[in-house]
């Protein structure tokens, strides 16, 4: 438990420093000549800096940030002036929906395909799955996303082109809204899923293949157990263990993928927010979003550890 808290404390420091190490600052972005809020003059710039408190020395800023954080206040966005917490709260459900769906789908598909492929290693089905999943994985996600959009949204017009839901859909019935959200979710979730599923698939397959040579499986065969028992209770059950750790680790990478995918599909989740806030050097928003991501990843790993301990009696204390 201490390790997790320590990790989060380190991340708070890094979260604070890294945005400020990037070239440029939020005022530059705010007063960009091309922007509508363009203002000229060092005076106004200085007053803006003073207003957002970024003219003070870093340690002081950090102290202020910590005090704020202690109160549960994430500050206000420099770019939009809205409270960061509200912005995150508004966008988080969308990302949870997207990432959650993808992770669940990817894990399910990867596991099933991996179990099947590994158990029947070298057979036709195994080869097809191996080639297909590897090929899809090597395909750049944003390209795949754009491609899918062109085909399904533009050409065929079966699915919506962008967003998380149809604008002004509040008049829809509950059921209609679910269908609407589902339609918007389908393509981005699909792109994210294929990228993730391949990793799970490969690890599960490799685990199954090495289980094929395990002595306890040989024993199970000698015992004349049913094929199903051998496949799931002996091989898959043991091959599953590393996959649990991998899935937790993957969450970090999912966020990276999520940022790209949300851009491509103009999805209203955290990914878009992170992208925008980095462009605007919007320190409070960057800090807030990354802190949320960090805490999620760490808690997910903690959860995986607990799960692993339940799955593998050997690691139980």
């Amino acid at each position, binding site marked *: 438990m201490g390790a997790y808290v320590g990790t989060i404390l380190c991340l708070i420091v890094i979260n604070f420093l890294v945005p400020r190490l990037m070239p440029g600052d939020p005022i530059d972005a705010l007063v960009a000549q091309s922007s509508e809020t363009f203002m000229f003059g060092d005076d106004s710039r200085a007053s803006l800096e003073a207003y957002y408190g970024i003219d003070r020395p870093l340690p002081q800023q950090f102290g202020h940030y910590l005090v704020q954080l202690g109160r549960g206040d994430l500050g206000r966005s420099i770019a939009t002036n809205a409270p960061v917490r509200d912005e995150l709260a508004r966008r988080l459900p969308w990302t949870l929906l997207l990432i959650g769906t993808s992770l669940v789908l990817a894990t399910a598909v990867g596991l099933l395909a991996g179990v099947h492929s590994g158990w029947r290693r070298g057979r036709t089905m195994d080869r097809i799955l191996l080639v297909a999943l590897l090929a899809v994985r090597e395909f750049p996600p944003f390209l795949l996303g754009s491609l899918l959009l062109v085909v399904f949204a533009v050409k065929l017009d079966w699915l919506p082109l962008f967003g998380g839901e149809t604008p002004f859909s509040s008049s829809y019935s509950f059921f209609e809204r679910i269908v609407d959200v589902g339609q918007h979710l389908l393509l981005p979730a699909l792109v994210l899923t294929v990228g993730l599923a391949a990793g799970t698939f490969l690890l599960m397959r490799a685990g199954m293949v090495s289980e094929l040579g395990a002595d306890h499986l040989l024993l199970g065969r000698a*015992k004349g157990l049913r094929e199903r*028992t051998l496949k799931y209770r002996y091989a898959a059950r043991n091959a599953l263990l590393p996959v649990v750790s991998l899935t937790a680790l993957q969450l970090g990478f999912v966020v990276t993928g999520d940022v790209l995918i949300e851009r491509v599909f103009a999805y209203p989740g955290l990914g878009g927010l992170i992208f925008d806030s980095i462009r605007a050097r919007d320190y409070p928003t960057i800090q807030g979003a990354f802190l949320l991501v960090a805490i999620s990843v760490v808690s997910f790993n903690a959860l995986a550890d607990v799960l692993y301990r339940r799955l593998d*009696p*050997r690691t139980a204390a």
Partner: protein
Amino acid sequence: MSNHSLLEVDQLRVRFGGEVDAVRSVSFTLEAGDSLAIVGESGSGKSTLALCLLGLIQPPEASGRVRLAGQEMLGQSAAVLRSRRWSTAALALQGSPFNPVVRVGDQVAEPLRDRRGASRSEARRRAGELAAEVALDPALLDRYPHQLSGGERRRASLAMTLALDPALVILDEPTAGLDPASRAELVERIRALTEQRGFALIVISHDLPDAARLAARTIVFYAGTAIEDGVTARVMLEPAHPYSWALINAFPVMSTVKDLRPIRGVPPDPRAVPSGCAFHPRCTRADDRCTELRPELAESRGRLVACHFGGLKDLLVATNVAKTFRGAGHDVHALCGVSLAVHEGESVGVIGPSGSGKSTLARILAGHLAPDSGRVLLGDTALPTSWRGGTAKQLRRRIQLVMQDPIDALSPRLTVEQLVREPLDVGRDGEPDERGRVVADMLERVGLPSSGSFLSARPHELSGGQLQRVALARALVMRPKVLVADEPTAMLDASEQARLLVILRERQVEMGLGLVLVSHDMALVRKMVDRIVVLDGGEIVEEGSSEQVSLRPASITARRLVEAAPALIATSVRVHPTAPIDEWSSR
């Protein structure tokens, strides 16, 4: 269902990846209730054989026939295989593997649930009963495999094999890695189970004592094939195949008093099993037939042996040898009808007090003295009374004598090189310039310098120990098959004696020498030899294995020799004619 054997294995072969010959043509049958041990070095294919018996290795790797209760197991459908596995024959794999994520009890009862559709509670109850049968604490059934000790895992594994009440139980290294106490306990438990349940047992082990206690019949495995097959007591006590003999000699048992002897060479690589008899590169008596023709199991000395010579044969046999020295006034009956046999690679100690006829026997065995009656056979040929003629010369080089006092035995006028080389020159053995190398090589082998001034030294310049080793080199340079050594260390100090004996032992393993060691020193002889013959008044008064004669001597002569044997503290060696041998440590 009645007139076939429980298990019939016929010409079973297993070849992995087209190049690794794990099992090379094995045939045997096993009747219900029989017990069989399969012994051999690691990597000899024993475990692979076990897997084949349950059809766990299938064509194309496996070929031949394996019939389990009349049902062919090779090339059979998965459903048929499943129906036979565990219920007809159950196998405890080497190392007792378990599924690490499933509780032990669930695994013990798993066949009941999965195969017989038993309910969870019924399976649990049966698992508890089985655990009790193998003396495993039923509380352990709720644990995971990693929480059990090695011995507990072995027991759980054994309990598991009994789940479906099989007619045949195969145990692969059931006691490997256990401490001696739990090992003995487990062996007793297995014995008791075989008696109570009456299942047939195949125990695969490299541990000979365990195998001997568990099985009435033993098959010795070498390079994936059976090389000896017979009643356990016979195979273990009088092994016939040179490999069995070497294997059993290499194994320390509590009663072993002699030094351990490794088998020369290394076990064969299953990728490149030697042609002909697979043991021929390590065998000291192999000839052309052995390198070309593969021997089949054939009846010899009351068991089956796969050896072109029918197993070890006696190399030197003396029958009813008598010798009387006629002196002025009275005759000395040095030997009155002594019979003795030495087989290839064996060491026999001839021990007796002064005047018992030891040295006379040694000289007669070496062919240096003709007996009055009786005869001495070397191989199949009687030792001639004269050493003239080609055959006699050939025979002479096969048997050599090392005497008590090297100063008497070696000519003082010759140099070291000349002394060792002389037999080669006399026998016109090899090219003259090659002889020099042979001499140098042999000097090295007996631990002497092989170049420089040492070669031109003369006997008086050498120490007694060096001189005796020169004498040994002179004897061995002819590559004899039998060496008779008459008190070879009598003139040496303890350190030189130890050195000479170690060299002698090494050369013996290397060359497969038959050794007759004549001495009055029981402490020394029992470390060196397999068998001891006690001589007194020209007659053999006792004969037996070295541990038997040295620890439980039956004759008065032997007891006196044991009591007279060197001891640092006078009371350190006691003689217990009836005490169990386990009380004695080997050293």
